Structures are given as structure tokens and as C-alpha cells.
């Protein structure tokens, strides 16, 4: 039985696990964006915050993913459901590229443009939303893109704690020494990562200021 055959025969389960996978990646990316962009903005405007914020995100990044899933398991409420836990862990990993790129993007806005804006009497809020964020958008988006691609890969490990997703096939395949099963999880995940990478890359190019 070849791989194509297997996917076809189990298409329902493939679809279900793919959707689960998308859900894990989607929610955690959304959370990382909602938390990471404000943190990036704050550290770009208050240099004091820069080191602690980026430092913390950096340290989180160095924790091995399997260990992080394990650490979080005994936490009350969180440990009750594996997908909660997986989403939290994925969010934490996705934070660094989002924060770092928001910081870099905003700091990278031409100082003359910011000075002109301030001199003309824009409020800080107007400066942020009309000048800084639009000009930093493509850099921020490239951070989100990195976060998504990394998350798609990391989310396969979430199956180890029972959070579902395409990792199920991979872990099952590993246990049964069945290459086909491993590929049935790995290939859709790879396709997902490549699609996200391509799509967000295209968007990023379109939003890049000249």
C-alpha cells in the first residue's frame, strides 16, 4: 500500500488531524500577535523595557519543546486539557519572532520621518498608527511568518501530550516503525508550513514600503 493510497483511505482522519493542527497553530499565532506586537511597540518606545522583554522571550525560546510541554502538564486548569497546554506552549515560542520584528520594524522607521511627524504635531497615538506601524508592517509580518512556520513544526510535538494534530500520525508511525504513517503526518505538515510561508511572504512583499 503506498502513501497516496493510505491518505485516500484515511482521508477523514487526515482531514480531522489537519484541522486540529491548523487550530493549534492559528490560535497560538493569534495570541502571540496580540501579545507580541504591543510588547514590541512598548520596548521600541521605552528602551528600558527592551532587554527584559526580549531577554525573557529569548530564554523561553531555548527551553526544549518537549520539556516545556512536560513542565506545563501539572499546572492546574491548564493541564486539564492538552490543547490548552499546547496552545500556551506554542504561543510562548511564537512570541520571540513577533516581539523582535515589531521592535526592529519600529526602530527602523526613518528618524527624519518620525521627527517631522512629531514636529507637525501628531500625537503619539497618531504617530504610531499612521506612521510607525504602517511603515513597520512588512517587518512585523515577516516575524509572524517565521512564527507560523516554526509553530507548524512544533505543533507536531503537541501530539506527545495528547493535543492532537498531525503529530498523531508521526508518533504512531514511530511507535509502529511505519514510515508511511510518519509521512502521512509529516507531508501535510510540510505542505502547511510551505503554504503559510509562501502566502505570508507574498503579503509581506506587497506591504513593503518603497
Amino acid at each position, binding site marked *: 500500500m503506498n502513501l497516496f493510497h493510505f491518505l485516500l483511505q484515511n482521508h477523514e482522519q487526515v482531514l480531522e488531524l489537519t484541522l486540529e493542527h491548523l487550530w493549534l497553530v492559528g490560535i497560538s499565532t493569534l495570541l502571540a500577535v496580540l501579545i507580541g506586537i504591543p510588547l514590541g511597540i512598548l520596548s521600541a518606545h521605552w528602551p528600558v523595557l527592551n532587554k527584559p522583554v526580549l531577554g525573557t522571550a529569548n530564554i523561553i525560546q531555548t527551553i526544549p519543546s518537549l520539556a516545556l510541554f512536560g513542565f506545563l502538564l501539572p499546572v492546574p486548569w491548564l493541564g486539564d486539557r492538552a490543547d490548552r497546554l499546547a496552545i500556551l506552549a506554542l504561543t510562548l515560542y511564537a512570541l520571540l519572532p513577533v516581539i523582535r520584528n515589531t521592535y526592529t520594524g519600529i526602530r527602523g522607521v526613518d528618524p*527624519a520621518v518620525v521627527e517631522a511627524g512629531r*514636529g*507637525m504635531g501628531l500625537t503619539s497615538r497618531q504617530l504610531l498608527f499612521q506612521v510607525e506601524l504602517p511603515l513597520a508592517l512588512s517587518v512585523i509580518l515577516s516575524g509572524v511568518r517565521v512564527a507560523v512556520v516554526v509553530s507548524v513544526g512544533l505543533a507536531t510535538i503537541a501530539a506527545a501530550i495528547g493535543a492532537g494534530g498531525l503529530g498523531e500520525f508521526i508518533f504512531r508511525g514511530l511507535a509502529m516503525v511505519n514510515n508511511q504513517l510518519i509521512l502521512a503526518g509529516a507531508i501535510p505538515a510540510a505542505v502547511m508550513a510551505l503554504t503559510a510561508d509562501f502566502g505570508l511572504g507574498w503579503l509581506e512583499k506587497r506591504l513593503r514600503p518603497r
Partner: protein
Amino acid sequence: MEPNLAKGPVIEFCNVAYTLPNGQQLLSRLNLQVQRGETLVLLGRSGSGKTTTLKLVNRLLNPTSGVVRVNGAPTAESDVIRLRRSIGYVIQDVGLFPHFTVERNIGLVPRIEGWPTERIHRRVEELLQMVGLEKQMASRYPHQLSGGQRQRVGVARALAADPAILLMDEPFGALDALTRDQLQREFLSLQQRLGKTVVFVTHDLREALRLGSRIALMDAGRLVTVLPPGDFLRSSDPLAAAYVQAFGDGLDSAANRGAS
């Protein structure tokens, strides 16, 4: 409190000093008045405190001591956003918003001031004409313009909400000689028509003589002397004399109102 609009200086520095947090003094004991409708040129080499002086007017910097008054009111007590919107600001790097068209760049202050769209549109057309740009430029982006065109847009943007005061920080410094000459000439004729109160920073004596009604010579954070262009050329002040010598012959014809 009604600020004294009709009489008295438009901008006034009283014993103003500015010191960086690390203790370096950029400006000390500055006393200077700018009269309505004049073009006061701040002349000096880099680090002399000209730009610092300029930024104290629209509160991009706040004095460490002393008082800056605009239209009689201490700037420290005025609303900083209102203050800045009532003062046009032009800088050497222009600082056009790269993601906005020329029209949006020029119309930004009117837009955030809530002008109706139609009025903004008319104002932009009027300003484009005023600074010598064609109407079609309105839909261009800054990266599609030449350096001279960009600075024209910069000037138009500063004039958008019709401020009575214009601060210009080496606005023509980065342009080639021919474009600079042309823009200087246009500045003079524009200034004759509009009668704004202008503070103009430059390190170019020729430009100072040509554009200024008075020249304030600065050195190492101190105001050395304030003179009309004609007197500047004959000044016995050693620094002024050094400037005149450095710029060489033919300056007499450059002097703006001193000659005519």
C-alpha cells in the same frame, strides 16, 4: 489669557539654557527675539546650538532653564500638540511619509485637524502651485520625486494649515547648487507674499545673507551677535569676520536687504 498678538516679539528666548542629561551644555544663556514677519537666520557651524535653538521653539526639546515664549505665552504652559500644529516645520532630510502620496503628505495636518475633504483637496492644489509643483504631482509617492521636488513638498506640507511661524532647519542643505539657488529665490518671493515669521538654520553664510533679515551668529552654544546682513559683512566681531573671510569675495552682492 489673550496672548499679545499685535505687538512684541513672536518668539522670545529669555535666559534659555539646554543641557543634555549627561551634563553636556548645548545652549547657554540665550536671549533672542524674533519679530513678526522677519526671517531670522541662525548661522553657525555644527554643534553651535542652532538646531537646538530651533527645536526649543516647537518643544521637540524643552529648555533646562529659562523661558521660551511664542506669541507672548510661555511654551512650557501651552498645549504641545496645539503649539506644534500652529508652527510649520521643515527639516533637511524632509521626512516625507513614504507610504503617503504627496497629497496626503501635504494634507496631513489639515486632515487630523478635521478639515472637510474638499477643502483639503483645494488647499493641496493651492499649495502645490505655490511651491511650483504641477497638479499631477499630488498622486505621486515621495520616492518618485527628485530631491528638489521633495523639499518643495516639505515646504508645502509645513504651510498646509497656514501657520504664522515657520521653522526651517537647513532645508536646502542637501540639494545641488542649482536647485538650492532656485529654491532660495522662490523662498524669497514666497516670503514676500506670505510674510511668515521664519527662523532659518544654516551654516552657509551666502544663504544667510541672501535670505535673512537678521543673522544670529552662534558658536559653542552661545549667541555671538545678531546683525542685519549688511552690517554682518562690516562687523568687527572676530567670528563674523572669520566667516566673511572664509566665504571670500562677492558677498556684498549676496546680501539681501542690506544692499537693496
